[in-house]
């Protein structure tokens, strides 16, 4: 077979796959989709890597013609935040189109400790939240990683549970109509050491069900909650603060899935075989597929070699080899 023939055959097979029956297309659509949080490239962004470099990198992770999902951190990646210029907005949309990137999750904060010595009241919190909902919508995002302030103090029994501010229900409820109007799903991130079976999650679920917030208020699960093996200690390395692992079984995620609008595909290490040695990804992805969860898995790399050479880029690329295998894309 000549090279030209080979390429034609490959192209034909790809077209055939794309044109397969509607049932297959529907089945394919009911799977988790892949994306990347720009958080991964924090230690390169603005130093040796531009927004366009990040987008080109993410496009490289796509299966031919596939649209990759994107998470940004509003306060980190939007030039001129919270009032980006028209020139920046134009560049934003041009780059999304050029690299086939789909804006998925917009990371934002309700900074309860904005002023020293007090916490934001409900109206102030609402105002901060709504400013971000509007901007997220302008940029095309449909999900928020809505970070709430926490109230735990050292020495209290709840120290390790990241308890949200006491008025969260009030300002989230006030913002629900704004979120609906702007097609935006507010999602606190469930992050280690929080357990999926805990008072905090019970409180969120009770609120979601009682106030019928779906889909405008839900959850983002960070897969760090499933990390069941400790990280290797590295002298002088980052993230060295070790605490006893407190993790949830993957099955605890199942009853929450109707309320989960995006997940953080957290990882700390990848082997050269493109496997995650710390977080049980096969079980996680199999569970999501089994339950027809079709939201985005957004890579979030927290390795010790971020910003060292191409560390972050290599790690994300390896994770996507793993995810493609687990999702049946490879």
């Amino acid at each position: 077979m000549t090279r030209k023939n080979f390429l034609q055959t490959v192209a034909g097979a790809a077209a055939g796959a794309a044109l397969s029956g509607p049932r297959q297309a529907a089945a394919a659509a009911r799977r988790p989709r892949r994306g990347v949080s720009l958080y991964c490239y924090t230690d390169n962004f603005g130093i040796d890597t531009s927004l366009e470099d990040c987008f080109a990198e993410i496009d490289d992770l796509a299966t031919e013609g596939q649209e990759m999902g994107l998470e940004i951190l509003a306060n980190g990646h939007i030039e001129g935040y919270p009032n980006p210029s028209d020139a920046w907005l134009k560049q934003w949309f041009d780059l999304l189109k050029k690299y086939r990137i789909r804006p998925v999750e917009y990371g934002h904060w309700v900074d309860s400790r904005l002023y020293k010595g007090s916490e934001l009241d409900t109206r102030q919190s609402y105002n901060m939240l709504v400013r971000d909902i509007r901007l997220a919508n302008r940029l095309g995002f449909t999900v928020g990683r809505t970070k709430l302030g926490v109230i735990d103090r050292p020495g209290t029994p709840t120290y390790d549970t990241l308890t949200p501010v006491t008025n969260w229900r009030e300002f989230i409820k006030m913002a629900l109509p704004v979120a609906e109007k702007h097609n935006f799903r507010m999602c606190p991130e469930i992050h280690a050491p929080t357990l999926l079976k805990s008072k905090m999650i019970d409180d969120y679920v009770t609120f979601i069900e009682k106030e019928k917030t779906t889909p405008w208020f839900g959850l983002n699960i960070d897969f760090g909650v499933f990390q069941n093996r400790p990280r290797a200690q590295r002298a002088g390395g980052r993230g060295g603060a070790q605490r006893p692992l407190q993790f949830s079984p993957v099955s605890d995620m199942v009853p929450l899935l109707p309320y989960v609008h995006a997940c953080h595909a957290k990882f700390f290490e990848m082997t050269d075989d493109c496997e995650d040695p710390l977080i049980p990804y096969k079980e996680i992805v199999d569970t999501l597929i089994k339950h027809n969860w079709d939201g985005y898995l957004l890579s979030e790399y927290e390795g010790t070699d971020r910003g060292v050479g191409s560390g972050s880029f290599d790690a994300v690329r390896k994770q996507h080899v793993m995810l493609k295998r687990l999702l049946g894309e490879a």
Partner: protein
Amino acid sequence: MLEREVIQQRGFRNVHQGGKPAGFQVRFRLPGYRGIWLSMEEGFEVTVDGEKFSRDQVRVTVGGRSYTQDEMTKLGEIHWSTLEPAILTVSKPGGLKLGVHDVEILEYHRVSYIPYPPEGGAAPGSFGGPRIYKRRMVLVR
């Protein structure tokens, strides 16, 4: 693009008032993954070759406007981006001598999404606590 070091070499220079050196400037890039609102900033402490400058001697320029550190505590609507180093202007009549200087900057801002620090404040270097950055710098003007 920014320099990887938090204390930026570019922009380290004396500043003049009425034709005389009145102090110096140094650019400080906010490390980490998010910008902050200026009111979250608890303050900068600058030390050069062991000489420590008080909070009142250090003004902060963000978005083209210069503030005292006390003014910053009220600025909950002014955002300081990780992409735009703040310019710290330090008052020092006579300025610094040309040549090599060891610059040290302590920076601390409140983080709402982690537990509160212990009474009396977080220890430098602790999780979410003040961080001290050092760099050997060369002043040319």
